[in-house]
C-alpha cells in the first residue's frame, strides 16, 4: 500500500505536472543565484571564492521555499489524505513518505547543481567538499521544516508567503551550522547540522500528521 504512494509522491514532486514546477524550478533558481552573484559583486575571484559557499547555502534555503505551496495543499483539496485515512494509512505514514519524496526531489539535485555553481563562483575543492557535506547533512532538515510548515499552513490565506517567512526563521540553525562548517572546517559543526536535521526529520511526520488532522476539524 505504501509503495504506490512513494511512486506517486516522487512523480508529483519531480515532474510537477500542472501543479507547476516540479524539481526543475528550485534547481534553476539555485543555479540562477549562482550565475547572478558574480554579476552583482563583480569578477573578483578571491571575493567570490570567499563568499560563494555562503551564497550557495542561502540559495539552497531560498530554493527550499519554492515547492512548499504544492507540497500538501493540493492533496488536501483533492481529498487524498481522507481517502488514505479510510484505508487505514495514518497521516504520519503519509507525511513520512512525503518527506522522503520531497527530500529526494530537491536535496540530491541541489548537491549536483553545486558542481557547476562552484565553477561559477571559483570555489576550491575543499570548499566544495564542505559545501556538499553540509548540504547532505542539512537538506533533510530543510525538507522536514518545509513539510511541517506546508502542512501547518495548508488552507490558510496567504499561506505561501507565511511559509517562506517561517522556513527562513526555522531553518536558521541548519544554515548557521551548515554554512559555518565552510569557515571552521570542523567535523563537529557538520555534526550539529546533521543532528538538527535528524531531530527535524524524526518529529516532522508526527507534527505534519497532527496538522493534517487538525485541518480536517477546522
Amino acid at each position: 500500500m505504501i509503495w504506490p504512494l512513494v511512486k506517486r509522491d516522487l512523480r508529483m514532486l519531480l515532474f510537477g505536472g500542472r501543479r507547476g514546477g516540479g524539481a526543475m524550478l528550485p534547481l534553476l533558481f539555485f543555479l540562477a543565484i549562482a550565475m547572478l552573484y558574480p554579476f552583482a559583486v563583480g569578477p573578483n575571484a578571491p571575493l567570490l571564492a570567499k563568499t560563494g559557499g555562503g551564497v550557495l547555502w542561502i540559495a539552497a534555503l531560498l530554493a527550499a521555499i519554492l515547492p512548499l505551496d504544492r507540497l500538501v495543499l493540493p492533496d488536501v483539496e483533492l481529498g487524498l489524505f481522507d481517502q488514505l485515512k479510510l484505508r487505514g494509512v495514518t497521516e504520519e505514514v503519509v507525511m513520512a513518505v512525503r518527506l522522503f519524496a520531497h527530500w529526494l526531489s530537491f536535496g540530491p539535485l541541489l548537491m549536483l547543481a553545486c558542481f557547476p555553481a562552484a565553477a561559477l563562483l571559483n570555489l576550491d575543492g575543499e570548499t566544495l567538499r564542505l559545501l556538499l557535506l553540509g548540504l547532505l547533512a542539512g537538506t533533510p532538515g530543510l525538507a522536514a521544516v518545509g513539510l511541517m510548515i506546508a502542512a501547518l499552513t495548508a488552507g490558510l490565506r496567504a499561506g505561501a508567503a507565511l511559509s517562506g517567512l517561517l522556513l527562513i526563521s526555522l531553518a536558521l540553525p541548519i544554515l548557521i551550522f551548515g554554512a559555518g562548517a565552510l569557515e571552521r572546517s570542523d567535523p563537529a559543526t557538520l555534526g550539529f547540522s546533521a543532528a538538527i536535521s535528524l531531530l527535524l526529520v524524526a518529529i516532522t511526520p508526527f507534527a505534519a500528521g497532527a496538522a493534517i488532522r487538525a485541518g480536517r476539524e477546522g
Partner: protein
Amino acid sequence: MQARLTASDLACRRGERLLFRGLSLKLSPGDVLHITGENGTGKTSLLRILAGLLSPYSGEVSHEGAIGMLDERPALDPDQPLGDALHFWQQVDGCADASEAASAMELDALLEVPVRYLSTGQRKRAAMARLLCQDAPIWLLDEPLSGLDDRSQARIAETLSAHAESGRIVVLASHQPIAVERLNVFTLAEYVV
C-alpha cells in the same frame, strides 16, 4: 464479517453553531439510508463523522467493516489520465482489475483522458469506479447523483441496489430522490437544533 454501522447520540458542532444533536443510527447488512435535509443542516458533516474523519461534538460511532467514501473530491490526480489515476487506487486497494469497475461506470472510452478534462458527471462516475475498486462493505456517499444525467443516475441507483443486496450498507446524502430498494429516508431536520 457482517457490515454494521452504529451511531449513538451524536451531536455536531461547526464553529459556534450546533448543527444537530441526539442523533442515533443502527445500520445492518442490506440497509440503505438516504439522509435528506436543507443546505447547511449538516449532512456532509454527519457523513464525515460516520467515516471517522470528523470528531463528533458528543456521541459515538462504531463500525464493523471497511468504509468507502465518495464526496465532491474525487481524489484522482487531475494531471493523470483517468486510467492511471484509477490504477493508483487499484494498487493501494489491491484491487485485481480496475477495468471492470471502469466498465461498470461506462468509462472505457475516457481512460486516456486526463482527469482535469473530465466533466463533473464523468468525474463523479470515475470516483464511483474508485469506490467499486475499493471493495468496502460500508459506503458513505455525499451527493452521488449531482451532475449526473438520467442514464448515469439510473446506473448509480442500480449499483447501490446491488451493493445493498449483497449484504452491505449504503448511506447517502442527497437532495435528489433515488430509486433504490429497501431505502429508508432519514430527515436530518428532526435533529437540527
